[in-house]
């Protein structure tokens, strides 16, 4: 077994198994426990398809199975809509082809599993899985099988595959990547050959070579070097020409001069059969320069690939009334005045006005306000918000193009354009450096030529090669590449590598409130209960439970009762009541949910009402009066959930959004930054959180536009900002901030706008990111210092003619290797 399964862990996903031996699957004649129905279904599907080998060879644990598999799969049918497919399906002869991003790929065995599973499906022409990019390319015959069928097959074995929005530069990146690889490969192979011939001459391996043999070697070297100079080196000439056209110089200018001059001198020498050749130096020079460019390009390509994987195309569908029945359509097709049904748990497909029904709606993604809003007939609802409790009929008031969400999207695009540009330090430095090099070599040539030294030309070439800013060019990209790889392992995805440089210059960190600093879900903060009631009734408990201290068992009882009643509610508040009630003999005989208010239920012989104070008051005036006078000692005055049993209030609860557990420790570590909270929530809520976390500045009541203005003001005052956010309403600010970070469960829109995405839900990753940015910066400084220092050191030798071109090329390569090695130390 190549993967270690934690003790008492699920055999499939490795998460703790609390179900004991409830879900057992037989794999290779042994029974293994699974943690949930989801993993059970996936593991069984893998075994049923004869793919047990997966478990033998996987090197990472699988992702947890989806428990609501049937519900997920039924939604896939929408991907067969031709109108939707236009965007991402390509015609491939008579077949169709699609590229999917596959969630749940953890190791190479997953690639095998997917290909084997799909190979058996008739109608599928070709499947190829790219494990590194977590993507699959699928070609199928649309007459035999539908796309949703393929996607269903994949979800059976635990992979969620969806179309996605590729980065606009991705196609060109890929083409460039291939061209770099070809140029690099050619240069590498040719360098080996030319070097072999050169070594023969340097060290006289064959004994004393005759003049004829040397001429022959040189001619062959010229033949081999020509494609390297003409093809592999072409990117340098193009870039140098572009720079000169723009009336500036870059690193490629001296590079181009050195290559061209050495090559032309070599051609002349071979022709005239007289003079020296340095073909091996040219090849090595081109090869090492290409390595640095290739590394830089690859890190960009990889980042763009991974970040576009996150932008899945999940079409918004809606149930539209077509006069006789509800039919499923894509939200884009909806017209004004269409009637749409939105079920509980679904998000609003479009902006509209409620025709009938009552529900509570979570609008935190638009407003930042966490408490759900009660919506009744005639109220306006917005696309992207979440319907939580009741079914509602909505009359469409504007098409999706004019929905509030799309207005935010446009705001984001505008903000992105005004993003502050970074001054690239290395580029600045190298420009002056290049000018200096060109001047020095020009002067040197003039001096030696006027003195009459026959080697004046080769001395100049030596200067150009020895001082080549190759190591300088590698200094930044190699450090950034290594830092990105390391951060990726820590669960931080960088979409823009140079964001690391900007992080180190940031002065302020701005947090969004809901979902970033807080968990974005209700949990129980405080509660109090009537001792008298609990003492009388605690005997409902099973005998099985151990006699613990009196106090604990009373708390246990009231929490269990509350959780039992709330278990029937869909309201997010119910999520705060998760106490285990299995140890009590509760039974529910009747229950009613009052949308947005509370729940009434009959548990054993108790008539229970649980909900807001207003709801309890409406149920029983007397109880509220008693509550006001203090029914039981210690009742909480500002409780927002009250439990009343048989017209007597027995317990009060405070349920609120709670601070993410690691937020406090994180804030303490960020002492050297100016911290602030920027939220759409009401000011007093924001102040409360700021006090709790000791954050100095709190700004509430902000619309997305207001947030953007705030950030722009700060930037105009010379501040450099890091912004953390998650919601749709944060997207414009994220686009405008100097460095923007989207936290784990952020909306797609926020991820799209962000420079950095925290893949895990831990806020602590921010600390990792800041530390890494600091380390990377010092590494870049070291690299630049070394590269410049070496060049300065070697310059006098080159000017005085002590260094021949091949020694210069060797020294330059060694210097580059040292820089790269220094950068790789970041990965540790």
């Amino acid at each position, binding site marked *: 077994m190549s993967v270690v399964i934690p003790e008492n862990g699920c055999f499939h996903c490795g998460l703790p198994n609390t179900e004991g031996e409830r879900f057992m699957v037989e794999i290779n004649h042994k029974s293994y426990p699974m943690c949930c129905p989801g993993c059970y279904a996936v593991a069984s599907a893998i075994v049923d398809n004869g793919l047990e*080998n997966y478990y033998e060879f996987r090197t990472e644990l699988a992702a947890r199975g989806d428990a609501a598999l049937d519900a997920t799969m039924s939604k896939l049918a929408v991907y067969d809509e031709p109108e939707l497919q236009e965007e991402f399906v390509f015609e491939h002869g008579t077949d169709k082809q699609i590229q999917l991003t596959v969630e749940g790929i953890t190791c190479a065995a997953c690639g095998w599993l997917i290909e084997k599973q799909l190979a058996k499906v008739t109608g599928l022409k070709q499947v190829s899985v790219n494990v590194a990019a977590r993507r699959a390319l699928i070609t199928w015959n649309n007459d035999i099988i539908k796309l949703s069928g393929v996607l269903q097959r994949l979800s059976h074995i635990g992979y969620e595959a969806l179309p996605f929005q590729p980065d606009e530069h991705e196609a060109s990146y890929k083409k460039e990547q291939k061209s770099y690889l070809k140029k690099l490969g050619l240069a590498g192979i040719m360098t080996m*050959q030319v070097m072999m011939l050169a070594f023969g001459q340097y060290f006289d391996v064959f004994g004393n070579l005759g003049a004829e043999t040397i001429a022959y070697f040189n001619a062959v070297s010229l033949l081999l070097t020509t494609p390297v100079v003409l093809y592999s080196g072409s990117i340098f000439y193009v870039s140098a020409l572009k720079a000169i056209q723009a009336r500036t110089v870059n690193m490629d200018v001296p590079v181009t001069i050195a290559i061209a001059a050495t090559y032309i001198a070599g051609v002349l020498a071979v022709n005239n059969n007289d003079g020296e050749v340095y073909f091996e130096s040219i090849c090595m020079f081109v090869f090492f320069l290409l390595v640095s460019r290739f590394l830089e390009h690859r890190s960009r390509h990889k980042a763009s690939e991974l970040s576009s994987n996150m932008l899945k195309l999940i079409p918004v569908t809606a149930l539209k009334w077509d006069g006789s029945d509800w039919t499923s359509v894509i939200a884009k097709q909806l017209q004004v005045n269409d009637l749409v049904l939105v079920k509980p748990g679904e998000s609003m497909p479009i902006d509209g006005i409620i025709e009938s029904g009552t529900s509570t709606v979570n609008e935190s993604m638009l407003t930042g306000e966490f408490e759900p809003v009660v919506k009744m007939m005639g109220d306006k609802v917005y696309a992207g918000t979440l319907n939580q409790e009741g079914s509602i009929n909505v009359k469409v008031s504007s098409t999706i193009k004019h929905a509030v969400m799309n207005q935010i999207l446009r705001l984001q695009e505008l903000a992105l354009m005004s993003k502050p540009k970074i001054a690239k330090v290395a580029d600045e430095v190298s420009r002056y450096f290049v000018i200096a090099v060109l001047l020095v070599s020009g002067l040197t040539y003039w001096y030696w030529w006027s003195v009459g030294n026959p080697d004046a030309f080769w001395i100049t070439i030596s200067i150009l090669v020895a001082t080549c800013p190759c190591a300088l060019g590698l200094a930044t990209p190699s450090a950034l590449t290594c830092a990105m790889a390391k951060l990726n392992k820590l669960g931080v995805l960088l979409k823009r590598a140079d964001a690391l440089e900007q992080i180190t210059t940031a002065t302020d960190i701005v947090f969004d409130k809901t979902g970033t600093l807080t968990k974005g879900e209700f949990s129980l903060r405080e509660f109090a209960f009537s001792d008298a009631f609990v003492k009388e009734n605690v005997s409902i408990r099973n005998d099985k439970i151990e006699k613990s201290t009196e106090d604990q068992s009373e708390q246990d009882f009231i929490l269990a009762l509350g959780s039992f009643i709330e278990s029937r509610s869909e309201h997010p508040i119910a999520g705060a009541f998760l106490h285990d009630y299995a140890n009590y003999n509760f039974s529910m005989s009747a229950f009613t949910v009052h949308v947005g208010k509370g729940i009434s239920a009959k548990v054993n012989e108790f008539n229970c009402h649980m909900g807001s104070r207003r709801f309890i008051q409406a149920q029983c005036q007397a109880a509220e009066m008693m509550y006001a006078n203090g029914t039981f000692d210690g009742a909480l005055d500002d409780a927002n959930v009250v439990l009343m049993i048989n017209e007597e209030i027995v317990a009060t609860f405070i349920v609120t959004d709670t601070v993410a557990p690691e937020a406090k420790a994180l804030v303490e570590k960020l002492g050297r930054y100016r911290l602030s909270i920027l939220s759409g929530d009401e000011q007093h809520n924001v102040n409360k959180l700021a006090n709790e976390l000791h954050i100095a500045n709190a700004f509430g009541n902000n619309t997305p536009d207001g947030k953007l203005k705030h950030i722009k003001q700060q930037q105009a005052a010379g501040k450099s900002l890091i912004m953390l956010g998650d919601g749709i309403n944060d997207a414009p600010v994220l686009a405008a901030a100097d460095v923007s970070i989207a936290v784990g469960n952020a909306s797609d829109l926020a991820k799209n706008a962000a420079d950095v995405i925290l893949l895990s839900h831990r806020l602590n990753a921010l600390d990792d990111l800041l530390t890494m940015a600091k380390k990377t910066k010092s590494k870049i400084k070291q690299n630049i210092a070394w590269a410049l220092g070496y060049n300065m050191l070697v310059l006098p030798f080159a000017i005085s003619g002590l260094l021949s071109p091949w020694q210069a090329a060797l020294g330059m390569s060694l210097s580059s290797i040292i820089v790269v090695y220094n950068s790789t130390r970041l990965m540790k």
Partner: protein
Amino acid sequence: MSIIYVLIPLAVIIVCIGIAVFFWAVRNNQFDDLERQGYSILFDDDIDSPKQTKESNAVKQTDERN
């Protein structure tokens, strides 16, 4: 030493073939995913569920290899 007049051109031709193969491989996306293909050799072909004995043998063999 005249043999080098034959051997070196021969080597050049072989290098050209090598480069042609390399270019072909790059064009056909052979370098896209370097993690996955290395593992394919470890996997057996399809296991037929009815032939349980054969399957367990195959598994045992792979176990020993590990």
